[in-house]
């Protein structure tokens, strides 16, 4: 046998072996992809065209669930609450993260301590314990009203109990967790060469100009990335609203997140068909919003010379 042929055969045998090994290593992932993600997505699409109470057979109803969703005032309320929440919580998280990262970046002492301290809320902010604390802090006799009284502002009503402020308390809770985005920005800031700032300084650029023309463009991929992840998270928010409103989305549906409405339809009213349609509307919303954010910001996001 000629050497070249043997090499070629060994090469292809190696390729087969590699493929077999790769798919063996991936087998849990592939099983999960099919059984836990893709399969359920497909069946939820099917269920969204049916009427199904959880027992017996789903009854095909065509587009009825979607028609119902678009004519359902509570669905629109839930969509409005979710969009309002996302559009306020995400920018404020990114803004706080950016502000604190910039403040901490310039050779501040005890940086690791500050970084750790500001990061803690990101770890516990999603927990039931903190949601319960929030319910107390913003209650009628809570910490906030007490603090306001101390500085002479009389505020006796509950922030959680009033439809005009309840969602705001959830935005504050999300903003409180800016730490993880801040850590990402801090890592990004460190990668910006100091020489850029020196050059700008020589050209007479002030601090604000340097921030706008160096820091922001250099950080823009990370800012976009954090915004996208925060947005996907915000559109799926659930826990805090559930705990603070006792599962109702109240007062007066003012904290009725889309996911909370979906949960109520599915697991309180057992309308699995309708809830699946809501689920697919959520999937489409997230996909559209993500794509829009990424393409819409393409002009402003700077990927460096190598890109």
């Amino acid at each position, binding site marked *: 046998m000629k050497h070249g042929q043997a090499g070629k055969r060994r090469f292809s045998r190696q390729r087969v072996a590699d493929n077999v090994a790769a798919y063996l290593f991936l087998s849990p992932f592939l099983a999960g*992809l099919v059984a836990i993600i893709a399969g359920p997505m497909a069946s939820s699409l099917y269920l969204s065209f049916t009427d199904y109470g959880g027992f017996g057979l789903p009854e095909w109803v065509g587009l009825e669930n979607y028609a119902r969703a678009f004519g359902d005032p509570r669905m629109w309320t839930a969509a409005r609450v979710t969009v309002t929440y996302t559009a306020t919580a995400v920018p404020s998280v990114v803004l706080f993260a950016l502000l604190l990262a910039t403040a901490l970046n310039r050779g501040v002492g005890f940086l690791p301590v500050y970084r750790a301290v500001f990061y803690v809320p990101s770890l516990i902010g999603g927990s039931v314990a903190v949601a*319960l604390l929030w319910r107390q802090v913003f209650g009628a006799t809570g910490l906030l009203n007490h603090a306001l009284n101390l500085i002479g502002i009389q505020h006796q009503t509950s922030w959680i109990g009033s439809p005009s402020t309840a969602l705001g308390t959830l935005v504050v809770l999300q903003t409180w967790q800016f730490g993880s985005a801040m850590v990402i920005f801090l890592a990004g800031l460190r990668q910006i060469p100091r020489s850029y700032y020196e050059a700008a300084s020589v050209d007479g650029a002030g601090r604000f100009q340097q921030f706008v023309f160096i820091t922001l463009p250099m950080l823009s991929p990370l800012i976009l990335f954090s915004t996208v992840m925060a947005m996907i998270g915000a559109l799926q928010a659930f826990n805090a609203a559930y705990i603070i409103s006792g599962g109702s989305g109240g007062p007066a549906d003012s904290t009725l997140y889309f996911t909370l409405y979906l949960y109520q339809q599915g697991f309180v009213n057992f309308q699995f068909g309708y809830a699946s349609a809501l689920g697919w509307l959520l999937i489409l919303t997230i996909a559209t919003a993500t794509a829009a954010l990424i393409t819409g910001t393409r002009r402003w996001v700077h990927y460096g010379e190598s890109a």
Partner: protein
Amino acid sequence: MGALRRERVSTPGGIALAAGRPVRTRGGRHGLVGGIAAHPLFRHPLLIGFAWFMFYPLAWMVTASLRPDAAINNFSLWPGRDFTLANYARAWQGVAGVTFVRLFLNSLVVAAATVAGNLLSCAMAAYAFSRIDFKFRGTLFSIMLVTLMVPYHAVLIPQYLMFRQFHWLNTFLPLIVPKLLATDAFYIFLLTQFFRSIPTELDQAAHIDGAGHLRIFCTIILPLSVPALATAAIFSFIHSWNDFFAPLVYLTRTANFTLPLGLRAVGDSSAESAFGALFAMSVLSLLPVIGIFIAFQRLLVEGIATTGMKG
């Protein structure tokens, strides 16, 4: 998702490092908060004040858990003469006849299984993605990243119906089995990034010595990836520990409740009169997370800095 490809800012930062420039510390003259706030004399008080403002509610919760219920409207941070451990004794009794220890252990079992499942299945997938050249690698990797966007609530109903069919309701299986199947793409992504940074010469040498992929995975990649695996384990634990939604759907019997469900039950049933016990239980439930953070904070901070995500 173009943004995912470049989780590190691609700048010539490496050049600055190679030239021996201190990229870590920067002269105190750049940035947004200029003027007064930039002066070190003012910066620390500002930062400390801000942190104080952020943490006051948490600190107050700890104090309130050490005071009798009647003192709920005392907002100072020192329990003083009111000091009592009675709330913790009440919290220890748990909810509806299920002790706190039971709730704690339920949470611990779910979290431990989640960590083990995530680590094993995600490390395996990450090994394939980072070290083996196979057909459809790019496609599968993209699909994996896209699953990061799939909202859990949208696949929940078919999953629920499926697990009900299996008679898994009111067991921990619906919470654990998906983790054995590498469904948390975040950890695959994190580990893939790390595995890619290990020099391939190591596997090639082992390969020439006759080692197969399993041996390379077990004896080279895993031992060299302990920091990344630890990061994934910690995120995974904290995520599972805080999880409320999946247990809410799958666990309806009090005896099976995890801590967050137990807390919710106490929070719903207790009127203003039982705040102390509720806060005591909340504090106890946060302790493991805080403890892990204090022990491993460097790993966590590096973990999010390199993947650009939180767990």
